[in-house]
């Protein structure tokens, strides 16, 4: 398989995620965009596993194992992230990222 396909797919997912993170107001939607970015990273890792395997071999399967780790970390991240969003909602009655600007000058 051409390496360009999965890599470009990952780039598209990542850029869409970046767009979401930067422009969405709802914090849950921001979290979803972050999930997209993480998915892009896993796609890249799996693709690079295949890339390395086709050239030098990858006996430790590091690409796939790392993709697995990213999934685990992503699950942890979404759990903590949602807890923070809930806390934000409980304290400020909003989940709009724009409204959480206490650190403003």
């Amino acid at each position, binding site marked *: *398989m*051409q*390496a*360009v396909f*999965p890599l*470009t*797919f990952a780039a*598209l*997912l*990542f*850029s*869409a*995620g*970046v*767009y*979401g993170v*930067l*422009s*969405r*107001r*709802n914090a*849950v*939607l921001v979290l*979803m965009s972050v*999930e*997209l970015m993480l*998915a892009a990273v*896993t*796609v890249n890792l*799996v693709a690079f*596993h*295949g*890339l390395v395997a*086709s050239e030098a071999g990858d006996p*430790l*399967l590091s690409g*796939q*194992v790392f*993709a*697995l780790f990213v*999934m685990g*970390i*992503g699950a*942890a*991240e*979404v*759990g*903590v992230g*949602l807890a*923070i*969003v809930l*806390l934000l*909602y*409980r*304290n*400020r*009655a909003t989940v709009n990222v*724009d409204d959480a600007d*206490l650190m*403003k000058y």
Partner: protein
Amino acid sequence: MSIPDLFMLGAFVLGGAAALLVVTARNVVHAALYLVIALVAVAASFLWMGAEFLAWAQVLVYVGAVVVLILFGLMLTRAPIGPMAQHNENRKFAVAVSGGLFVLLVTVIVATFGDATVDVTPVRVADLGEVLYVQWAFPFMVLGFLLTVSLIGALVLARREEGEGPLPDDTDEGSDQGLEDAAQEPGPSDVTSAPGAGDAGQQIGAP
């Protein structure tokens, strides 16, 4: 263009379109459902690249658990279900940044991996399991520890603290009252009126 390439292209088109819809949909629940499609497409791309275990893990973890968690998050934060403006004033800036990033990434990918190929020989789950529990055992345990910590952290963050309201006589009431008080407490005026380093700096130097 081989058969796996075609399948991959399908996942590409489906997943990319779903991803764009996730970040543009005006209805939050729709966005979550598009996320399901995007993640399934990612799982499919894993399958075409020979990562079968990862594909099913992706379906189980993300589609099965994470998206459900996000839907619960939408529910618990009483997000308005229905179409409405979900974007803020950063939209043009975001388009510029993400578009530029995408162009850059594609340029680099084509320049670097333009003629590289990916080995799609399926990896046996037994082999993956063996390296995972032998060579990668320690990082794997660390990951497990991380998950436990994040579980506890999420619990601590999201738990309603009944006995620790901002006012001492506020403990037995519904917590909404106390929480509004808590939200009012750190007003922005406190931040600006804190003793600044500038005052002290002036006092040191001036005779």
